[in-house]
């Protein structure tokens, strides 16, 4: 199987008439404000290096203006980089010819947008098959595939409606179906669920996670919501003022925030949903414990298992059922409470 990981290397984006001229200045430490005040150019992205693993969800997180939407648009080159590379299967997306780029966008990527960006004059099904239509795939075949994915996202029976007849959540399901129908290896999701109500957002996250279990796409997911990032992201990169300030798994970020900015972010997080039992377990089997908790479980689930059983400690078991360590109720609860230093 081809490697579907994406490597972003040394990516800079400086908005303005003559961005290239100021790359060196930025490399030498010129700040965003200084660049804007002195030269009237806006620093969008600064030395981005991210390896986005294949078949995983890479979350890019940051507040508005941090450059996250700019970054995702470099992966399918909706925005031209000032300097830098985006490598996919050995090829630099930033150097592709116009027609190669079009083929890359048609077959390798699909995108879901914050504001849905559906074609308002087309029905749900013709929206869903839009990507296939652009590829030149015949109507009957395209329709069948679109119907399949509309069903998967729960839009059975809405095929002939217009987007304006649907609620926001349903419109974004159409957006998701349109992207999935394209059958591309890379799924780019630009704040895809940010415009939705909290309950519907959780629904959509669940749908995405369920689909990902069988599809194994390389997903790049942009969000400003840390809870969403922690729930979805296999890996998370945090962006601030156009630069990556920390990347790693959700647990790594919550346990070891790189600076005050990030610890500020993570202090409100429900740690029980992020930290895994493996992180806090003590080595050695506890002979008196009768409860077994699978390795990789979240603390929240472990705590529930422990309290349900009435036991004070439990063993952590791997896939084969062999014990690899133990936890106690006390250590679990301690780890779930935000430490005072944060």
């Amino acid at each position: 199987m081809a490697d579907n990981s994406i490597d972003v290397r040394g990516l800079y984006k400086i908005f303005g008439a003559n961005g290239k001229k100021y790359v060196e200045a930025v490399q030498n430490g010129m700040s965003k404000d200084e660049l804007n005040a002195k030269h009237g150019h806006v620093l969008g992205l600064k030395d981005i290096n991210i390896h986005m693993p294949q078949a995983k969800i890479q979350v890019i997180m940051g507040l508005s203006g941090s450059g996250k939407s700019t970054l995702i648009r470099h992966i399918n080159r909706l925005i031209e980089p000032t300097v830098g590379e985006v490598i996919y299967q050995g090829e630099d997306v930033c150097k592709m010819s116009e027609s190669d780029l079009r083929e890359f966008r048609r077959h390798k990527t699909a995108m879901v947008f914050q504001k849905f960006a559906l074609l308002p004059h087309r029905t749900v099904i013709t929206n869903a098959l839009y990507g296939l239509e652009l590829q030149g795939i015949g109507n009957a075949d395209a329709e069948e595939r679109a119907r399949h994915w509309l069903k998967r996202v729960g839009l059975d029976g809405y095929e002939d409606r217009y987007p304006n007849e649907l609620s926001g959540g349903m419109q974004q399901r159409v957006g998701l179906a349109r992207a999935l129908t394209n059958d591309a290896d890379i799924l780019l999701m630009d704040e895809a669920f940010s415009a939705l109500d909290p309950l519907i957002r959780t629904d959509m996250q669940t749908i995405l996670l369920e689909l990902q279990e069988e599809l194994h796409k390389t997903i790049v997911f942009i969000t400003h919501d840390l809870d969403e990032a922690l729930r979805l992201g296999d890996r998370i990169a945090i962006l601030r003022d156009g630069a990556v300030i920390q990347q790693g798994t959700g647990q790594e970020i919550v346990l070891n925030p790189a600076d005050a900015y990030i610890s500020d972010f993570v202090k409100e997080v429900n740690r029980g949903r992020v930290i895994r039992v493996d992180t806090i377990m003590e080595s050695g089997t506890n002979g008196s414990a009768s409860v077994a908790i699978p390795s990789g479980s979240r603390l929240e689930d472990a705590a529930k298992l422990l309290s349900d059983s009435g036991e004070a400690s439990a063993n952590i078991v791997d896939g084969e059922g062999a014990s690899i360590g133990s936890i106690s109720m006390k250590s679990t609860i301690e780890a779930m409470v935000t430490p005072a230093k944060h």
Partner: protein
Amino acid sequence: MGVFTDKSLTEILTEFPEMSRTDLRDFKKGIDESFKVFTREWGVGIEDFFEPLLRVLVWFEKLVVATPWPLMIVILGALVYAGARTWGLVVGTVLTLLVVGYLGMWEDMMFTLALISVSTALCIIIGIPLGILMSKSDRTQAVITPVLDIMQTIPSFVYLIPILMLLGIGKVPGLIAVCIYAIPPVVRLTNLGIRLVDKDVLEAADAFGASPRQKLWTVQMPLALPNIFAGVNQTIMMALAMVVVAALIGVNGLGSEVLKAVNNQYLALGLMNGLAIVAIAIVFDRVSQKFGKRLQKHSEVIHG
């Protein structure tokens, strides 16, 4: 300093320092002469160029005049229904046609309908591609916009002169005069419509790998259509407004009757033909507006 010694100050201030009479005469003469040379050289060629247009117009005129009136009323009623989907408008149209015909203006009305149809078609065929071109680049827009401004504001009699010199009196020069006046709205609104298309939707088309042509036909044109149609509506209205001017250079129809009425001070004739033009205008306007509204149907049902 000669100026100040020869003339008094009051003379300098009251008399505009204009070009000398001989220079001015030579200047105008030069322009006239060179255009006459151009006419002699190219007149025939240009006439040949417009020959197919003449044939289409004549053929269409003959067709609508030769069609039996009851059939014509049925056809027009059906067209109105196809465009507007309302029976009220169909009834109104049929009544209008019957009244105008009863008052002795059937054939003139058919000539005018033919002229308006052909000139509108011509305006659309030229205007929409021009509008698309204009929407593609700001530079093209900057060049075409002032030209359109001139076409809409210059008194139509002014461009009748070169047209007459080149092509003489006849249907084609009339058609061209109508189109010069009537084409700007469809060009402007095509350009505007395409430029107003939601950037997010365009970005989505890009992200899915649409080529510029695919983007034009799957996103830009469909979403610009309501605006383009508003432009077509305006073009039709302006073409109707030019009917009398077209009659001046030999296009027959309701316009030439109005002209006759002006020349002879026939009040009733003028009013009747004038009102017939108004009636056609109202029918065209209502039908095209209803049609334009139907094009936007997808945006009507908004979810709360």
